[in-house]
């Protein structure tokens, strides 16, 4: 083809930013681009890793791709694809698929796939119940891991019991168990994921063919559950708001007052305060184990770590309760509406033949959907919180032993360097000498902090390497929504910066006009006022309580099944997601119009 586009920059042509060379070199060798990578197609995984990677956080990429790849390549044997390869450059994670193209090999793998995947579909409920048990066990194991700390002397009872192993040994053991659990969690995460998305996509594709003008959101509404874990945290905040009104405490949450002060003032007010705090505890465990991001970065903290977000939503809910509004989601009505949609679209099909296929496909899609919706709470939220908080405890240990100045700095070290630090601490405790890594670590951390800053300010190519003729990798299409057509848009370069329109996925229909509030982190969430339009990089379940205030939502990242889309539909708010550039192009306070049915944001 003569008009075939030249392609994206070669990986080898990407220069490491000046001043960040040492930080780049510190990532493990197997994540570094090498000359032979120039012949392959790579794309920037901005969906999962929209920010430059702290060195420790690369463990998420390692564990996730290890597990995703095993599932595709070896466990379910997807016919046309093996796993995902990944590299990191200038703090950005690039990934590439490994397609299977030999017809004989595809056929061989198809046979294997049907023996494995079909079994999973057939026994989905049982296997998913079993999955939840496995996940809960994994979570409780992680909760039981001891805090890494070292006594001055070994406790006497250990000595008298003839334990024969000193406390410093457990620093290493717990660290290994922590990492092992995280890698294992990602295996669980992918056990059903591709199969679940695949079954959903089958139904999705069918609907798009049978009803060419149906919206993505309508298809999603037909299979979505209403009791999914994703709704629970917000439901709990509403429950606590009810309780606060009942006990006459809602005034305690108003105004610019820190979560700690709220807790302290409730503590002091006696019976009513204590009763509410008891309710808070039942909400926190487990439902406040949701974090303020996708859980891929250590700084995506959970509600349990910072109660300010759920607390800030209480006054708004309390006011609505006192005005006689019913905050409960009308489950029966929602279920009825969903059934009406399913039946309505079924009636519109032209033949019984199609209706037969539709019934089979929607049955399968609904069977897999609880996992698609529910797994994130257990994996990306709950477990990831436990994991990063355990590492944070090691950060505290490092501070105590003079290796670093702040517990958070531990995330600037790779997981291998953390292990070196642990052995340093173990040795120092064992022989009475000071730890030896303090100077070295401090220099590295300073370098890496600066690198993250430099990288955050750089533009990243959306893709690298030659343009593939076609993208036939179901994982890449399903998980990242990347198609051959996307690449042409990328090759054309960024959209006209002067255009008054920003396009994204039509996530929830309706039109709203108002001032944009560009929120770059959850800490800024309190800036949102009634009627504002939320403009953010990505939302997740913790943001749900702010949806009561806003008039529309716009995000950089996400598809029609993303959290922002699901919650916006719940609240009946217009939403456009996956714009790629909203937070960069929209000024805070600027008036914008959001057309959620068309997926267009207009700058006014």
């Amino acid at each position: 083809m003569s008009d075939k586009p030249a392609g994206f920059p070669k990986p080898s042509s990407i220069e490491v930013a000046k001043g960040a060379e040492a930080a780049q070199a510190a990532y493990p060798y197997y994540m570094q681009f090498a000359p032979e990578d120039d012949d392959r197609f790579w794309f920037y995984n901005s969906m999962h890793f929209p920010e430059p990677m702290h060195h420790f956080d690369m463990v998420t990429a390692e564990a996730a791709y290890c597990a995703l790849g095993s599932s595709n390549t070896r466990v379910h044997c997807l016919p046309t694809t093996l796993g995902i390869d990944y590299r990191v450059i200038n703090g950005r994670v690039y990934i590439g698929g490994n397609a299977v193209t030999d017809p004989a090999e595809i056929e061989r793998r198809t046979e294997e796939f049907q023996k494995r995947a079909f079994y999973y579909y057939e026994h989905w409920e049982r296997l998913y119940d079993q999955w939840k048990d496995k996940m809960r066990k994994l979570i409780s194991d992680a909760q039981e891991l001891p805090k890494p700390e070292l006594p001055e002397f070994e406790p006497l009872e250990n000595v008298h019991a003839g334990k024969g192993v000193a406390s410093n040994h457990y620093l290493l053991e717990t660290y290994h168990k922590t990492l092992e659990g995280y890698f294992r969690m990602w295996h669980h995460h992918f056990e059903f994921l591709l199969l679940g998305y695949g079954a959903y996509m089958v139904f999705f594709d069918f609907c798009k063919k049978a009803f060419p003008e149906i919206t993505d959101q309508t298809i999603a509404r037909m299979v979505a559950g209403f009791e999914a874990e994703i709704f629970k945290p917000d439901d709990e905040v509403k429950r606590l708001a009810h309780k606060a009104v009942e006990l006459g405490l809602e005034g305690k949450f108003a105004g610019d007052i820190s979560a700690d002060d709220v807790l302290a003032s409730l503590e002091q007010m006696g019976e009513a305060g204590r009763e509410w705090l008891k309710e808070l505890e039942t909400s926190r465990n487990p439902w406040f184990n949701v974090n303020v991001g996708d859980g891929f970065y250590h700084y995506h903290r959970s509600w349990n770590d910072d109660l300010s977000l759920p607390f800030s939503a209480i006054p708004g809910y309390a006011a609505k309760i006192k005005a006689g509004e019913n905050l409960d989601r009308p489950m029966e009505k929602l279920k009825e509406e969903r059934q009406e949609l399913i039946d309505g679209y079924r009636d519109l099909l032209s033949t019984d033949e199609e209706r037969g296929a539709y019934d089979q496909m929607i049955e399968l899609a609904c069977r897999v959907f609880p996992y698609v919706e529910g797994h994130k709470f257990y994996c990306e939220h709950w477990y990831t919180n436990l994991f990063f908080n355990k590492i944070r405890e090691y950060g505290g240990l490092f501070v105590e032993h003079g290796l670093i100045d702040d517990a958070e700095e531990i995330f600037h070290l790779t997981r291998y360097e953390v292990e070196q630090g642990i052995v340093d601490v173990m040795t120092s405790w064992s022989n009475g000498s000071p730890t030896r890594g303090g100077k070295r670590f401090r220099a590295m951390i300073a370098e890496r902090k600066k690198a993250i800053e430099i990288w955050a300010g750089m533009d990243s190519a959306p893709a690298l390497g030659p343009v593939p003729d076609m993208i036939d990798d179901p994982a890449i299409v399903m998980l990242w929504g990347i198609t051959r057509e996307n690449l042409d848009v990328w090759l054309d370069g960024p959209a006209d910066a002067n255009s008054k329109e920003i396009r994204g996925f039509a996530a929830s229909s309706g039109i709203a006009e108002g001032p944009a509030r560009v929120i770059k982190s959850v800490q800024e969430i309190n800036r949102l006022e009634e009627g504002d339009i939320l403009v953010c990089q990505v939302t997740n379940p913790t943001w749900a309580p702010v949806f009561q205030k806003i008039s529309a939502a716009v995000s950089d990242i996400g598809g029609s099944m993303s959290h922002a889309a699901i919650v916006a539909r719940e609240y009946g708010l217009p939403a456009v997601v996956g714009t790629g550039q909203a937070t960069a192009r929209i000024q805070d306070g600027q008036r914008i119009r959001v057309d959620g049915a068309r997926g267009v944001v207009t700058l006014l």
Partner: protein
Amino acid sequence: MTTPNISWFADIGLSDRPSVGGKGGSLGELTNAGIEVPPGFVVRTEAFERFIQKLDKEEPLRAPVEALDPDDLDKVGAVTKAIRERIENEPMPADVDDAIQSAYKDLCGDDANAPVAVRSSATTEDADDASFAGLQDTYLWVLGAEETMKMVRSCWASLYSVESVCYRRRQNFPESGVAMGVVVQKMVDARTAGVMFTRSPLTGDRSVITIEGAWGLGSSVVSGEVTPDRWVVGKLTGEITTRDISDKHIRQSPKPGGGIEDVELPEAERTAPCLSDEELLQLKDVARKTEKHYGKPQDIEWAVEKETGKILLLQSRPETVWSAKDAAPVAAAQDNPMKHVMNIFGGKRS
């Protein structure tokens, strides 16, 4: 009340086509389905038959037409012209004349000059074939009983146009079977009017309703004189997924002395949407109800009455373009439902 000569919409339905024509039957059907149409009546085929028989008695009419050679255009022209003149001028049987006049009064009440629409309503299945049915005449904004009588005659006379007669002669259709109903209904002074399809004209999608509308009477949309605003509304969801607001340079309005005229519009009105979201959803509901009633996709003309804001249907016909296409089924049920997933996992290459 229905007499041999006229029927009110409420008293008829599609099955009355042989005696009230397709258009009249359809308006009756809609009325009885609880879908609002401008009120009116049909001058039944019996009235036409009485008149023609009267004329035939005075001077043979059907036999000379039946004897015509469709290739002898001069003769066809001369004979049909004479017949049309007779239909337009000879006195009607008194009972027919009375029935129409009094029905007009019942329809329009005290207003002796109330505007009505007079439309021919053909009786045969291939009614859409204008060459047979006569010109599918529609006279808008007809004022008063006298003028109405005149237009009824014009509709009848159109059955004796040169094309109509030639067509019948070629098909060897007996003249005794020629009949026509005429619809007389109150004229809607429309703020906005247009058409809608219960199946996407672009993709054939049956889950959306495409609505097109412009300011004033719907004739500007039907004739293509104005580029209408266009919306796509989810049939089941009510989501408005497309909004194309166009520059609608004119509005067709009733002319003071009868008939219609084009009115230039000021800039602001030209580019303002001619329907609100609420009206779009009301139209969607009416479209669904109509489609449900007929059991197949419909092609609908509608108007929003200026004074009341009421939505009225002017006409509903079965959609023909996509219905005629034999689309292959999107998918068929599988012996093992799991096999569907191979669409995703099987790969395009294999």
